[in-house]
């Protein structure tokens, strides 16, 4: 018979086994959040479309029409913006949702055991469902502009994975910090609001002077957004390899350190929540 030992600081190996054992919970929690979100709001699914659409319109008008920033080659400005809006929206909702996920479910933490990592991770999955819905809108826009992507679109899943990594990594950090320090939740909306302007959402990152580009790509979303544009805009927007590599390394580090920190704080969650 298998024997389990519960002892201070001796759960590590078991944890990853449990994570695998509870793998279905990722899906069920994400599914619950998704169902609940759309059952409660009157306009339902439309919400996932309206938000990015309106932001896109505003950005196109402000940056493209008023500031008259140039697009990338032949790509329409609104598609340039929307190609960036998609991963950004995914990242920012993931961040907001996952950082609140544990606090919003105190009973899950204090009344039952399962690897807590599942909670913030599944809220990233929920946001991914939103992402897929908004993706339909991009297809509609491309159809109306008669602007279709070329072979490069097959690389898109790689950049989606990068966005996933960035979202999970920073989500884990914020989620754990949020449980430990309750005033952290005031910081998250600030990060999200600030992030949309320092990330190249409303403009092309080729606007950034060459010597600052590497520094600029310390923001993990820069690599993701550039990748999305490259894959979707027929390569009209060139890939800046050094910054992409920097983003990938940074995302990996973010995920590893996020998991490490989350695991470290996790054992006290039930005591402080």
């Amino acid at each position, binding site marked *: *018979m*298998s*024997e*389990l*030992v*519960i*002892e*201070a*600081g*001796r*759960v590590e190996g078991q944890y990853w086994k449990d994570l695998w*054992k*509870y793998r*279905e*919970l990722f899906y*069920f*929690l994400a*599914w*619950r959040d998704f*169902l*609940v979100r759309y*059952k*409660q709001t009157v306009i339902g699914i439309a919400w996932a479309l309206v938000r990015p659409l309106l932001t896109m319109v505003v950005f196109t008008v402000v940056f493209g029409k008023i500031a008259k920033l140039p697009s990338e080659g032949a790509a329409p400005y609104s598609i340039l913006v929307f190609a960036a809006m998609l991963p950004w929206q995914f990242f920012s909702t993931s961040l907001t949702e996952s950082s609140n996920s544990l606090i919003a*479910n105190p*009973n*899950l*933490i*204090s*009344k*039952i*055991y*399962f690897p807590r990592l599942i909670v913030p991770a599944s809220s990233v999955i929920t946001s991914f469902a939103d992402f897929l819905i908004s993706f339909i809108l991009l297809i509609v826009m491309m159809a109306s502009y008669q602007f279709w992507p070329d072979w490069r679109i097959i690389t898109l899943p790689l950049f989606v994975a990068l966005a996933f990594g960035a979202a999970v990594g920073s989500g884990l950090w914020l989620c754990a*910090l949020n449980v*430990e*320090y*309750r*005033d*952290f939740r005031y910081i998250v909306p600030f990060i999200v609001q600030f992030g949309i302007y320092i990330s190249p959402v409303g403009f092309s990152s080729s606007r950034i002077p060459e010597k600052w580009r590497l520094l600029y790509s310390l923001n993990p979303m820069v690599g993701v957004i550039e990748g999305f544009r490259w894959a979707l805009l027929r390569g009209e927007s060139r890939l800046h390899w050094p910054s992409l590599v920097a983003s990938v390394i940074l995302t990996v580090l973010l995920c590893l350190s996020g998991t490490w920190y989350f695991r470290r704080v996790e*054992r*006290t969650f*039930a*005591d*402080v929540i």
Partner: protein
Amino acid sequence: MSEWVIKIEELGKRYRLRHEAEGHRYVALRDVLTERLKRLVRSGPARPSAEDFWALRDVSFEVQQGEVVGIIGRNGAGKSTLLKILSRITEPSAGRIRLRGRVSSLLEVGTGFHPELTGRENIFLNGTILGMTKKEIDGKFDAIVAFSGVEKFIDTPVKRFSSGMQVRLAFSVAAHLEPEVLVIDEVLAVGDAAFQKKCLGKMQDVAAEGRTVLFVSHDLAAVEKLCTRAILMDGGRCRADGPTSQTIACYQSTLIQSASADLTSRNDRRGEGFVRFTKIQMLGESGREQSLFLSGQPLRIRLHYRAGSNGLLANSRISVTVNGWGKVYFLASTELHSHESLTLPPEGFIDCVIDELPLSRGNYYLSPFFELNGVIQDWVDSAGTLQVEDGNFYGTGKDYPIGWEGKTVLVKHRWESANEAAVSQPELKSV
């Protein structure tokens, strides 16, 4: 010969009590930063800001395959902490637990239930949270629904369910877990009588199949019925461990010893503070302290107080409320009792005498209140705990009917009818 499934060795759990965090439930980053900064400026040794509190200390016992063990003890005795460690919700600070076989714990029924989702959706969600796979749930789905008895509403959002229905559905999911070791906390305290019976039956089945059950409860009758062995927890330690009847007897004798509560160290009080309650005592018929009362017995609540000066306390008003969680059952006040205003010596006690305790079985909290010239002096929430068991309140020898269980005020009354043969037995009224 010993085929243990749970082996607990010198288990301990330490909590850190923060002094500065009093009144704040949560740590804020802001406070942590300012504290660091202050220390940096002062550059002195950090003042001791935390105190250790052992919620569990040196707990050791073994549970054999197929045993049904009850864990009893008053609130704060460490029962829940023990269960939380057993369920791996929190880590121990010392010692260890060795477990053989799949352990399922049920500290709450319906964890993760969402009101917006339908019964069907919630079964799947709750099942996976409890550690079942989708395949297992698919296989047991019909049995779960049948056991809960809510077939007709299975596709209705559970927010439209009555609370009883929700509990039934939730328990049904949990009852189909089929673990080798089952750890249960108080879940039987909910639901109606018929369903409780069903739950107890289900637990007996689990035990009869040779599986091991660990059962925490305040309901001594249920423990007595289900368990062959019981462990009494007190102050984070095992006080007694043996046959159920023996442990229960031991528990009841400890209850009688401590019915008063010292209030001088309570900080969570409201009011001016010129007059303070210092102690609350619950006295029985003989004038001796008692902590378990029966419905219908006399109860004398003695409130000790002290004022900050030596003058008489003119125009005083004292009251005490009897409440459960978030619900006041009744109020006794000096104002209701007399027209004249009350003048009291600066130090002493005042008794509130209730000739026949009109409360049904349960734990109640007493909150005394002191007002002087219209200004609140002291108000201590839940200063004392009153434990009540069913007694002969109506003089009929009948207990409060099972299934109506729950804390309630009993009211003396009678029924009259024009019909000669009408019964004049008192009946019940619930609030």
